């Protein structure tokens, strides 16, 4: 996707988000947008980052290869090279006997190895999964119609209305050069309601204190929030005044420092000043 070929307002939010999530110095950004869900979709694409999927602790779904369409949950344990070929050992849950009550006894976990190519061709990595929970999950039945691919991309968590986000992600952008295309078409990112969606949604209450980067739509993080968050608010919100007060509280409670245009690279600064589709604020935490 060549970002420069899209409207300025498209580029602005995309590049601002990319800058905010890759630069270490900033912790909170607030964007006022008329179309908060579309902006959040663009911001999540901008914040997309590549991550090595072959790391110890990475959670995958792989086909069971037993003639069924079942997929099992596995966790990468270690890497080994045989004849210059990478081989990965993974943990999986052995079928249990009924009388065994505990979910995850040591003897329950098996260890196997498969070549890198297998994971690349068939595996589905879940960057957001927690290893301790992943192995205990039941096998899943994935129909062949589901477009499954391995992805190395990692996106911030989305805090907001899941269905609205998905529908905006799949809405025709009405850009003349990309007639009839939505963000999902342009980016080939898979967004849906299942746990295997490329972009993950999370409740605002679960993110408290977490260090995961996140994008908040029409919601403001609580003052104890310590992570990195891009907050997108619509001025059309009925509780907009309240939201602004919450942002102000956050600013005071966390002793945030507001950045001005000098904090931005020249190129981004020029881009952002070119049009007034959004209102941007950028904050760093003082003592860290």
């Amino acid at each position: 996707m060549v970002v420069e070929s899209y409207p300025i307002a498209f580029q602005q939010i995309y590049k601002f988000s990319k800058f905010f999530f890759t630069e270490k110095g900033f912790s909170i950004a607030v964007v006022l947008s008329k179309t908060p869900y579309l902006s959040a979709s663009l911001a999540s694409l901008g914040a997309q980052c590549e991550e090595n999927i072959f790391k110890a602790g990475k959670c995958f779904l792989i086909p069971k290869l037993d003639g069924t369409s079942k997929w099992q949950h596995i966790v990468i344990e270690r890497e080994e090279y045989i004849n210059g070929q990478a081989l990965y050992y993974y943990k999986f849950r052995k079928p249990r006997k009924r009388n065994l009550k505990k979910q995850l006894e040591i003897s329950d976990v098996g260890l196997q190895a498969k070549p890198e190519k297998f994971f690349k061709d068939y595996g589905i990595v879940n960057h957001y999964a927690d290893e301790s929970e992943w192995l205990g999950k039941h096998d899943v039945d994935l129909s062949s119609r589901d477009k499954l691919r391995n992805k190395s991309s990692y996106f911030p968590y989305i805090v907001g209305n899941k269905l609205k986000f998905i529908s905006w992600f799949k809405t025709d952008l009405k850009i003349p050069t990309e007639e009839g295309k939505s963000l999902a078409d342009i980016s080939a990112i898979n967004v849906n309601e299942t746990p295997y969606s490329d972009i993950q949604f999370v409740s605002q209450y679960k993110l408290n204190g977490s260090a995961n980067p996140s994008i908040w739509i029409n919601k403001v993080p609580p003052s104890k929030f310590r992570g990195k968050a891009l907050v997108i608010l619509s001025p059309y919100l009925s509780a907009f005044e309240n939201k602004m007060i919450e942002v102000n509280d956050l600013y005071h409670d966390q002793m945030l420092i507001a950045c001005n245009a000098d904090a931005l690279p020249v190129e981004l600064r020029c881009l952002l000043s070119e049009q007034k589709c959004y209102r941007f604020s950028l904050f760093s935490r003082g003592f860290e």
Partner: protein
Amino acid sequence: MSYFSNYKSVDINLNRFDYEPIRIVLAAYQELKKTQSTDSLHAEINKFCRKAINRFVSGKKAYIQDIEYVKELCRKKGTNTCRLLYRSIDFIDFDLVKYQVFESFYLNNDIEKVHILLESNEGWEYHEKVIFDLGLQKVFTPISKNDLKNNFFEIPILFFALPQWLESTLIIPPSGRLHFIYPEKLDYDFKIDSHLTLNSGKSLEIFSLKNEVNKKSFNIEPIPDFYNKFPEQDTRERDPLEKNEIISSEFKRDPVNTLNILLTSNNHLFTNKVYLTIMRDNSFKFSSFDTESDLEDVRYIVSSIDASCANIQSLLKEQTKIMEVWKKPLRDQGESMNA
């Protein structure tokens, strides 16, 4: 229509028209207002007077029954101010000025095309005839509130409204050029500041938005009948400008954020309102509704507060007021159950 803006700057054009009858009505309104706290009839007159003025400013035909009601009350009261109001309220009808307003607006502005924001389809039927009669059907096209919500327009947008009614819209304007038409007497020095500011007023935004505000004025002549009722033009002289601000802040309404959810066949929820609700877990909560999904967990909607133009203090005050009314019977009930 596009989801992405393409304007580099924003022009806000205020087309203010001078209309004799509204001067008289507003003067009378102010006069009655001084005593309305002690005089319930004055309060009632002012309430309906305000309604009529709001419709006029919104570019709508007056409700005849409201006008007649004001006249009836004025007749009962019979003071000088009421007599003045009795004679002049008839002229607070957009029907009487619409031809002139559209024509003057067109002649005073260099425009090829403009969208008119409308609240309903009937609104368009109301304006359409005028526009057609003036031969301006290629210039004016309607757009609805829903269009305005997510979209940006290349063509200027015309509002029959006071600019301060649309403060939330002006934070991120839907078009690079906006036109407002309203009576000059209700002019008000509004400001669109940065919305993320410290208590000290310091902006927290990376860039500040500079809007250019252009003011234009033109005259709208009342119908001849008006001069029959007010032959001597003595009303023009005294015109206390400093009072305008107080008065115009009373005429409030945000026409953009209303009406989205159909609750039952004859009951609407407004998105710009805060409702006192009882939740599934029997707790009280103040909720606002954006979509149907916001109705989950709500068991009962008690009451509504119009938050469209309330500031945070007045909102809280209103909330406590309603809370108190509802708490007491519940408390009493709780006590009798415990007893």
